[in-house]
């Protein structure tokens, strides 16, 4: 039964629907198609990053450097754009993806070859990347008037009623849906997180798979870096500060287990959308935006408690009495 109707995703989708109905009851304009497109467009960077983070978390790692990677790549492409305004946009995007991927590869190599725990590696690279932004930019901002028209216009250009930024998210979702379910890489990502020892015996290189996951996460962070800087038409040291936690939050709310091996593309997307709807709805229903942090924090706690209850394995009750009597 649950093979055809994923329980967790359904509940989350229902929660988002209830949320939308509640908002609509007070402010019907929020659920107008044009506004929903805006909400989706606003959430697009979070969706892209959450998918990258999902792959990393599935392999029992965590990538806290995504926001710093995004900011560094964004600054780099913005400066490239200022120096060479004539460069075609596809070329800029390729640079962004490669730069981000290279930074992801640094994380991946440290996790794979040295084995250093991922949380330590990405904490370190997070601060290093942020520092490097300052070094290359000298602490200066790159503003809208310095960027070329094409550079800032590309993510905002509408195709079939959706901005290209949204299309990037849609495309990423489709690619990931295929990758996770139809390719050896997707399967091995689940296998590595589910049971690393068993994965080794089936001939999967655990470290290499984790390395690939970090490269994927980094490349997506790079892509988002360009989209982010172009959309907001500004680049400086602190862009997307604290965003890595929002990305992890989206994954946790989407039912991706931090212990690895459990999660789905749909879950990650819905988790990101949940946060996006909350963020966009707060000003509409006259709640101060200052509530957003507390709400996403509570959502993480509720989601992780709920997931633990539903995912608890039956068995090994040897110590239950001992546990209960303490």
């Amino acid at each position, binding site marked *: 039964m649950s093979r055809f109707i994923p329980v967790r995703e359904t509940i989350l989708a229902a929660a988002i629907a209830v949320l939308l109905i509640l908002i609509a009851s007070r402010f019907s304009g929020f659920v107008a198609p044009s506004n929903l497109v805006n909400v989706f467009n606003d959430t697009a960077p979070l969706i892209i990053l959450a998918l990258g983070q999902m792959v990393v978390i599935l392999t029992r790692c965590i990538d806290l450097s995504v926001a710093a990677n995004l900011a560094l790549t964004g600054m780099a492409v913005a400066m490239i754009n200022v120096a060479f305004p004539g460069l075609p946009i596809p070329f800029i995007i390729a640079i962004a993806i490669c730069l981000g991927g290279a930074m992801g590869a640094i994380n991946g190599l440290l996790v794979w070859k040295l084995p250093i725990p991922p949380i*330590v590696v990405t904490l370190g690279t997070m601060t290093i990347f942020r520092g490097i932004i300052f070094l290359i930019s000298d602490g200066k901002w790159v503003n809208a008037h310095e960027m070329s028209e094409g550079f800032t216009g590309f993510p905002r250009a509408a195709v079939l009623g959706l901005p290209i930024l949204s299309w990037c998210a849609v495309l990423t979702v489709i690619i990931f849906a295929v990758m996770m379910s139809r390719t050896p890489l997707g399967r091995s990502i689940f296998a590595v997180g589910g049971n690393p020892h068993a994965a080794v015996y089936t001939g999967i290189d655990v470290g290499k798979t984790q390395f690939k996951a970090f490269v994927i996460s980094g490349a997506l962070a790079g892509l988002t870096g360009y989209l982010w800087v172009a959309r907001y038409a500004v680049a400086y040291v602190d862009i997307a500060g604290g965003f890595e936690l929002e990305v992890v939050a989206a994954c946790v709310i989407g039912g991706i287990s931090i212990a690895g091996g459990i999660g789905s593309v749909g879950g990650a997307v819905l988790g990101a959308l949940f946060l996006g709807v909350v963020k966009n709805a707060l000003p509409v229903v006259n709640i101060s935006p200052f509530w957003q942090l*507390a709400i996403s*924090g*509570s959502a993480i706690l509720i989601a992780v408690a709920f997931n633990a209850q539903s995912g608890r394995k039956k068995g090994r009750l040897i110590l239950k009495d001992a*546990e209960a009597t303490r």
Partner: protein
Amino acid sequence: MTDIAAQRHIPDRLHSRAYRTVRSWESLLLAVAIAIFVVNSFASPYFLNAWNLSDATFNFTEKAMIAFAMALLIIAGEIDLSVASIIALASTAMGLATQYGAGTPELVIIGLSVGLLCGAFNGFFVTILGLPSIVVTIGTMSLFRGISFIILGDDAFRGYPASFSWFGQGYIYWVFTVEMLLFVIIAVIYGVLLHKTNFGRAVYAIGNNPTAALFSGIRVQRVKFILFLLTGLMSGVAAICLTSRLGSTRPSIATGMELEVVTMVVLGGVNILGGSGSIPGVVIAAFVMGLVTFGLGLLNVPGIVMSIFIGLLLIGVIALPRLWTMFASHGKS
């Protein structure tokens, strides 16, 4: 022979205590600290000034107070990323109390109780509901700071009582600050707790093998709960010091401090996966980080660039020994 011992992680008892001390992580760190101190004293004429050095201690005293409790928690195989947000919440609560005319003793009680409450909140989710601490504390990190934002918005609390400034701005004797005294007292308390008591042994046991610890009669969940209470409490202490030193509260206070605390702990030789580490190591790591920050500050290096050094330090200290053993084993085979 030594190869096999190294592979099986058999503690090497063939050498004398003195030899093991010299070869230990703490000694290496101490050498690094002394080296940084010497380099700094040549690099800047302002370095070897007692007052400057005393000011430099503020770079690490508050973080180190939390780092000691965090070290125990990480040794036990858990982590608390919400400490900086607990500071924000405790600081906000104290600021709120000042608006109603609370005196210094009440403020201290409020700061400590908010810290303890937040720690209990984390502990409840991790030990009673059995959830992974990294996710829980990422959640409470947003939640606690979120509550501060709800209370304060983009405002700030000021007007703390004059006697309250003693914690963050007072001096005990000549250049020795109140915070420095607290730092020493807390270091000794945690050193004794971890290295000289049954509780400390239990912390190591849990970090190495929670199941075995449970079977040997250690109340694993209770110990973990106490450890979360301690990180909360120490965040409360740090909140009192930091609020007193700054003289005002903003909801964005201490942003990013949790990462610096974790860096300090890991730099001190505590295994992030749990099971090993020591308080003296964390003490030296606190000094290393303080000296690096202070020395670079004197050379007019901006704070954000210092974070590159801290990040490199964090990865470097873990990577170098592993690279060393990799190359050493390559040479032998």
